[in-house]
């Protein structure tokens, strides 16, 4: 069984935010009105923002400044603080290490959102809405079972949502392999942000396979994880610039 991991090479990232747009289209994350965005209600499963985020770090005074950007999907931690605090098991780590979110079970207590040190979880403050004609072009994919609703399915009001490494793409690829009566290969599937990345900065694969691209990149001396000291052990791993 695979253990999915994403590697983002910051040397190659041009901060174009193509990943954010691809994610939005793929996963049906609604765009919110500017006044709502100002209240911090914008949905950005994949965000791209300048570093440092911690105001105590020096960035210099103009014109002697340094600018660095970081794209941020879910970290898919091996030890996720969000899952520990969920009272109903609406968020859980599957056998392939992906942190999933079940919109059909979430009670909207937002314990996971305050528990996540990376701020990757988003809450549906209002009913999701799209301007015409965008609402006619939603991604029809969804992951559904009795008592389970995941993936790009339009989220009901009052539940939490997040990046799932495009779980529906994984399910689809696995179903296709089964239909074609062949074993599923890890390279059958990549999330939308990886597929679209302009600078080819994103890599995706099975970190348990020592020969996979991600496994080899993780061994690089440039590899680091965000907030390593918190002990969450993310599977989204970065390669430092330089």
């Amino acid at each position, binding site marked *: 069984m695979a253990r999915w991991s994403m590697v983002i090479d910051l040397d190659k990232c041009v901060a174009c935010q193509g990943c954010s747009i691809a994610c939005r289209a793929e996963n049906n994350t609604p765009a919110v009105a500017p006044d709502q*965005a100002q*209240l911090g209600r914008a949905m950005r499963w994949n965000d791209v923002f300048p570093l440092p985020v911690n105001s105590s770090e020096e960035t210099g005074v103009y014109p002697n400044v340094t600018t660095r950007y970081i794209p941020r999907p879910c970290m898919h931690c091996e030890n996720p603080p969000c899952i520990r605090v969920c*009272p109903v098991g609406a968020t859980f780590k599957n056998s392939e290490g992906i942190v999933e979110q079940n919109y059909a079970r979430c009670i*909207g207590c937002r314990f996971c959102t305050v528990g996540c040190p990376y*701020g990757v979880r988003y809450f*549906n403050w209002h009913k999701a809405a799209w301007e015409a004609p965008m609402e006619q072009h939603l991604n029809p994919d969804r992951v559904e079972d009795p008592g389970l609703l995941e993936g790009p399915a339009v989220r009901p009001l*009052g539940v939490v949502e997040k990046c799932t490494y495009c779980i529906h793409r994984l399910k689809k690829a696995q179903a296709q392999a089964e239909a074609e009566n062949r074993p599923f290969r890890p390279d059958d599937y990549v999330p939308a942000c990886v597929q679209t990345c302009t600078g080819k900065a994103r890599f995706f694969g099975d970190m348990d396979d020592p020969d996979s691209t991600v496994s080899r990149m993780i061994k690089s001396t440039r590899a680091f994880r965000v907030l390593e000291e918190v002990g969450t052990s993310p599977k989204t791993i970065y390669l430092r610039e330089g």
Partner: protein
Amino acid sequence: MALTYHPYNKNESVILDPLLRRVTARDLILWGGLLILFGLGVYAYLTQWFSGLGETGLGRPVYWGLYITNFVFFIGLAHSGTFISAILRLAGAGWRKPLTRAAEAITLFSLPFGVGSILIDMGRSDRVLNIIFFGRFQSPLLWDISAVSLYLFSSIVFFYLSLLPDIALCRDRLTNVPAWWQKMYRLLSLGWTGRPEQFERLEKVLDGMAIFMTLLVVTVHTVVSWVFGMTVQPGWHTALIGPFFLVGAIFSGTAAVVIVLALLRRVYHMENVLPVNLFNYLRKLLIVFTVAWLYMMLAEFLTTGYGNLADEMPVLWQKFTGDFALLFWTMGITVFILPIIIFIFLGKNNIGWMVVACISVNIGMWIERFLVIVPTETRPRFVSSLMDGFANYRPTWVEIAITIGLFSGLALLYLIFTRFFPIIPIWETTEDSETVLLTSENHA
């Protein structure tokens, strides 16, 4: 025809007076006013129910605000009763007797509002039963739910048991009240006849339960704090948060008892039943709690500030000099400086000053709860600080109306209770309840 006994209490008529009072225009205005405020809260909640939590001022990263503050505050308020009646019972402090029921009623009535606050805060309160169907004990929220519901259930039993002899007394004494009222007393008194062995058994059960309730006081508020303490967030993840919450809870609870007692004493003319020296006892306790609160405060902030960790300091500065500085220093004045001066120099034999200090303490403790919760959320480790409106939490009218509604509901419930049941325990405040069983009456 069963013979029933009731211990003789020379203040009985004073204590029963509120039950026999006519409903005056002033009563109606007060109840009506509270009901309207409560209704406003209900209206605000319905608005939120239909259009979502977007009606609040919450967002990202401030996911929790006023509702969670209210939750913590109400549960804290609830600690008054159990502290007074259970812990002081174990300690054998006889002076507690007249005020036990008034304090326990605060416990009993604030708990549902605490639980209600959690439900109001949920994005999908319609799915609340998922907690039972799919509950995971790894989540501190489940600890909370277990602890608070156990606390609520035990409080009801504890409260009801100590009320039992007085319900029976009402049944026998208040023969002129409407029939349904009589029937309610008859049903609720469970055939209590007041024989000595009944009193003996009752005392035994109450003593036993007091031990259990004391354990619950400690557990419940510690567990409430762990909702924050168990996360890895700066400012929340500290071992001190449990004891700190507990001290704060008992502090605000005891202060609330003073306010309620002073009101009862004045409105129901209970000067002889609630003598000024009761307030002097409470004053001494409150001085201890005020100092204990300061001790906790210093222990927490000195450790954080001295350690100077990069993640923790932004939260600390948010409180000291940042967006929450005004609230923070107001809290310092209202919880510590003002009350300690009043308690030590002005409060002795002076109920007016005691009430002023205790109102100040409760306002301050509400602010303290808010300051534990919100500043941490405004300085997360890894959320882009360039985001528009970053961490700019302003509660909306919906949140404020619901908050006012909850407090009005609590006051209303309390007021109505005092008109149906004796708010001072009659059987516990007799001169010598064990031996003197003078009056007996027949009842059908």
